[in-house]
């Protein structure tokens, strides 16, 4: 939830951590282990995205939460209402809907005894894909810029009875991103316009494995831990994003137009296992915000990849959503992400922010071909 426009009164409120949060947090080491040994080809989703922004359909060019602003559009930084914008850390856990019950069964003390066999996991993957991941960040941002560090791990397992070669296949894709950013922004050359830049250092690996289960040679190849660890040899690269924002503010109505250029001139990677270079992507966004001093409704539409650098289909390049911010400590959002409905909520308890979101991500460039229902739980500490 963004606090960029209004100085909202924040009220402390004690809130116990839900048992489901704890349960999934306990499952994290299991997912981390999976990521360490297997990990996927990069899709078009951003390298870092805030939970509340995802809930609002990912339309974040004209309004983004906390550290997400530095990567969504650095030109957002000057419009924070005060010099200080964000200092803190965040952790979010992603898991697809179908795997929640399976993840719980893997926990110590669960009815299955806390130990799940490999065959049980394979059976689960053949029934429904498995996606899990984490995202963390630590950042300091003010209205002139800031620095930040982030990491993102995600593993996606899909089993196809009729795989790419015709035989049953397990397809394993992963993302392992870590990076640091330095941002600068200002209201130049005139007030309604702001410009921003974010420099990025990225350390990435995106292995992708397809194991034909009818081929003993393929199975034995990936039974060797060294063969798996070789797949996560990271590549490094540096690049930068440019953003511009026109912000027309009224007493109850604001208008915003954004232009964002990701990876200006392209971002090249070296070393490791040949991560594809990032192409330059141009995106635009527009939004309208109805607000009082304490509440706001933000309606936004983004058009990503307008020059079709990745030949992004319309249902993925069009992002739209609504954020409703109430009294400074509650936010709810809904939108369309990858063409599917998304929604979520966030609670702001001054130094602690709790967020939940649900969305459906399309892994392919064709609607309905390989989608994942994803739950996200987010915990941010900072102010």
């Amino acid at each position, binding site marked *: 939830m963004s606090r960029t426009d209004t100085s909202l009164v924040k009220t402390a409120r004690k809130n116990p951590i839900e048992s489901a949060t704890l349960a999934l947090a306990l499952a994290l080491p299991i997912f981390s282990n999976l990521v360490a040994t297997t990990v996927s080809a990069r899709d078009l989703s951003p390298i870092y995205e805030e939970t509340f922004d995802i809930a609002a359909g990912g339309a974040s060019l004209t309004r983004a939460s906390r550290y997400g602003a530095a990567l969504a559009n650095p030109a957002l930084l000057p419009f924070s209402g005060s010099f200080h914008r964000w200092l803190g850390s965040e952790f979010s856990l992603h898991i697809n809907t179908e795997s929640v019950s399976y993840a719980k069964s893997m926990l110590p003390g669960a009815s299955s005894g806390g130990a799940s066999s490999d065959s049980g996991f394979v059976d689960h993957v053949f029934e429904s894909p498995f996606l899990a991941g984490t995202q963390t960040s630590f950042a300091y941002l003010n209205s002139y810029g800031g620095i930040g560090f982030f990491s993102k791990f995600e593993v996606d397992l899909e089993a196809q009875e*009729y795989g790419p070669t*015709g035989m049953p296949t397990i397809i394993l894709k992963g993302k392992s991103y870590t990076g640091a950013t330095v941002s600068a922004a200002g209201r130049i050359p005139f007030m309604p316009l702001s410009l921003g830049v974010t420099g990025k250092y990225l350390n990435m690996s995106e292995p992708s494995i397809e194991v034909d*289960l009818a081929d003993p040679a393929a*199975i034995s190849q990936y039974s060797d831990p060294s063969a798996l660890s070789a797949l996560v040899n990271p590549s490094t690269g540096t690049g930068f994003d440019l953003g511009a924002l026109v912000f027309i503010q009224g007493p109850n109505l604001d208008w915003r137009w954004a232009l964002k250029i990701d990876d200006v001139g392209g971002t090249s990677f070296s070393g490791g296992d040949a991560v594809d270079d990032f192409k330059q992507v141009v995106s635009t966004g527009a939004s309208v915000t109805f607000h009082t001093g304490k509440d706001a*409704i933000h309606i936004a539409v983004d058009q990503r990849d307008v020059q079709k650098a990745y030949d992004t*289909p*319309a249902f993925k390049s069009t992002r739209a959503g609504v954020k409703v911010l109430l009294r400074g400590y509650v936010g709810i959002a809904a939108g369309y992400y*990858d063409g599917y*409905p998304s929604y979520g909520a966030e609670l702001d308890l001054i130094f602690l922010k709790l967020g939940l979101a649900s969305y459906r991500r399309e892994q392919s460039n064709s609607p309905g071909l390989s989608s994942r229902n994803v739950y996200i739980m987010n915990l941010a500490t900072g102010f």
Partner: protein
Amino acid sequence: MNLRYIKISTSFLCVWIAASSCGTSNLGDCPASNALVKCSELSADDQIRKALNDQDLTAAQVLLEAAITEEPDNYERYPLLAAVYAGLAGFDLLAIASSTSSGGGSSIMAAMDAFLPTPAGLTRAEYSAKIDLMGQAIATIQALPAEYRATSDTDKYAASAVQQLGIFQAAQATMYMKMFTFNFDTGLPDATQLSNMSDADAAAILAILTSAAAGGGVFGETAAATLASISAGGGSVRDNLANFLSS
């Protein structure tokens, strides 16, 4: 703007969230359901993949046959079509995957039994049609150029094609043999049905087994062991096979 607008908007948002959480339709689905987002037509390969993921093998067969006719040089589709034929024949691909590590039994009948359709409940003609479908699976793989079904090739499709060929040959031989040890009228195993097996049938079965053994792969050794057992009879091909099947 007063609080009333916020309440109305929040209520609207909650209704949207509740309504949108149902269903799996996408804004990009065709035909287009809205004027704002252009629909994304599925390519031929995407349609094939969707049919396969949905286990709609009949649709997948139609799509693959059309795609191969249109682009006969796109060899990545051949193993898919072969697998679809095998699936339509009742061959359990998933079961075969979970048992590849234990494929080396002494008898091809015992090794393959768990993955093949049971003749029970079928007429002879229906079971024969399934054998023909398995034959189509084999023929589809054999239609690939030699370099696309070679284990020495690093191409994953080529390696998989060899595996598939061996598996489907072993499966067809087993189904063929089972047809002569099953009474389709009573729906029970019946060795007396071996009297219906002709010399040509026996020769065809042996030829398929020989190919399966020569191809190696998961069931190559088992096929070879079965051939050796059959040949140990010392009689004619038909008699040796009949003795093997009745034992």
